[in-house]
């Protein structure tokens, strides 16, 4: 199945999208796509079949997001902790990802038409070299698209991201580029894998689990979180619209705490921090270009 599904919506679903879409729409939505394996078990099929169904659901969800005008989507595809699964399953998932990224490169025209920019967030060093190269190519190929952004968290955990960011900052201080007073929430968030994204307005987790499982720990601290009981492959447009409806009801209540959090940070910003961040971004671009070759 293609990355952006062509499945049309029924007239009822379209009506639902139009109604919900007339209200406030989150700019950035994050998904923990949980329940593929339970889906496979329920239907008595191989685990990888469940993951495949999960991918199909993702491509439909991306289509719904485009319909609704959600500009940015971040999905949790593979956690660093998932490397602890059986070798068979990990291999299967890597093969699936390789196949899907190859497909993505073939779909250049379609992605350009929709203006989709793909970013992979996570520690790419942990991945097989072929997959890494495909991911880097996909990111470079779509980097000038700006209508919609899809961040794929792969070999990612929120803690690893925070630790890497702090480590970069510590190096900056040790090299004399930064001073200790320059370290703020704002600076740290600019060192993360998600440095180009605004914070998610809404986080959706499927399958009835009520945990964050190390996903975007820093970024969702003041976001609206929606737990859905359905398994990810069973997630329908109605479940999705319910989540957005929930967001419409709660976003006002969270403004106050977002404001409190920003207040803690003060207004410290200097030219040195800007230079530091610019350099960091340049280094990352260089790294991607090297990977793609």
């Amino acid at each position, binding site marked *: 199945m293609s990355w952006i599904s062509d499945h049309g919506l029924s007239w009822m679903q379209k009506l639902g999208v*139009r*109604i*919900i*879409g*007339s*209200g406030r729409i989150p700019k950035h939505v994050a998904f923990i796509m949980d329940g593929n394996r339970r889906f496979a078990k329920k239907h008595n099929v191989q685990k990888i079949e469940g993951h495949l169904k999960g991918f199909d659901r993702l491509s439909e969800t991306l289509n719904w997001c485009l319909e609704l005008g959600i500009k940015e989507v971040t999905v949790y595809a593979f*956690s*660093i*902790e*998932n*490397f*602890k*699964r059986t070798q068979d399953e990990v291999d299967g998932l890597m093969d699936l990802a390789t196949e899907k990224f190859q497909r993505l490169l073939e779909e250049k025209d379609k992605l350009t038409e929709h203006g989709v920019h793909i970013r992979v967030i996570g520690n790419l060093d942990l991945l097989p070299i072929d997959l890494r190269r495909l991911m880097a190519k996909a990111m470079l190929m779509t980097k000038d698209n700006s209508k919609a952004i899809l961040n794929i968290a792969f070999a990612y*955990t*929120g*803690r*690893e991201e*925070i*630790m890497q960011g*702090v*480590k970069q*900052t*510590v*190096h900056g*201080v*040790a090299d004399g580029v930064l001073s*200790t007073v320059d*370290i*703020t*929430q704002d600076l*740290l968030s600019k060192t993360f894998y998600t440095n180009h994204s605004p914070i998610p307005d809404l986080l959706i987790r499927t399958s009835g*689990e*009520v*945990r*964050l*499982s*190390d996903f975007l*720990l*820093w970024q*969702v*601290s*003041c*976001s*609206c*979180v*929606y*737990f859905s009981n359905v398994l990810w492959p069973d997630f329908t447009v109605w479940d999705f619209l319910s989540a957005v*409806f*929930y967001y*419409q*009801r*709660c976003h006002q*209540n*969270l403004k*106050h*705490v977002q404001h*409190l*959090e920003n207040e*803690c*940070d003060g207004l410290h910003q200097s030219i040195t921090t800007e230079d530091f961040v610019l350099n960091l971004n340049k280094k990352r671009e260089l790294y991607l270009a090297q990977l793609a070759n």
Partner: protein
Amino acid sequence: MAFNLFRAILVLIHVIYDVYCEARRALRCARQHLEDYFFSPRGLEAEIEYVRQERKVLDKPLSHLAVILGPEVVSVRDVVRLALWCHAAGATYVSFYDPSGQLKKNKFALDDALISACKVKSHIPKTNGYINGYAGKQFPHIMLLDISDGKPGIVRVAKQICEEVLSKELSPNEVDLELFSKYVMKESGVPEPELAFYCGDIFSLYGFLPWHSRVTEFLPLHSHHNVSVLNFVTLLRRYNRCEQRLGT
């Protein structure tokens, strides 16, 4: 024109949903009153004893239980009750997270309320400030947290590490997950909570400790005002049923 019609329908749905939520809340309160009237133990002592009995059926560890008060106005009386129940449920650490910091400001009132609630003086749990004191494994630490303990806590740890690097106590390459986690845990004074209750109708972390909420189970308490011990125990049982797969 069409957009205005859709908008009107959406507003109407929100209004109907508001009514539905209010009705549900009223029903929940009514049910809770009835349950409390017929089944709930009377008085704090009896409530604590009830939780202690229930704890025996819990087989999952509970080192830290967090209560996210979120948008609610603090009720010191209910915080005391919750703290003592959590203690009875076997939690070594109990934390109350109030983003606005009101609870921290009321620390002395809370200490007084705790002292008068505990008949046996040696069983008085200690609130922050006694972290390194004698409130060890036997009695829970009660931690009061606010927004400045969340992301700003991580910023403080990053600064501390930088200072240590500058004074050559640490090399930047030594920074890894284990080391950083150790520093963050020490800074906050609490371990990762296995379980957190949140108040209010919606779920958000309200800026709660980001590093700590990696695998925490978040369950809805609805409100900490006049919280029912039966509800508290139901949530503990629900927590006991949750399966942790830790990525595998």
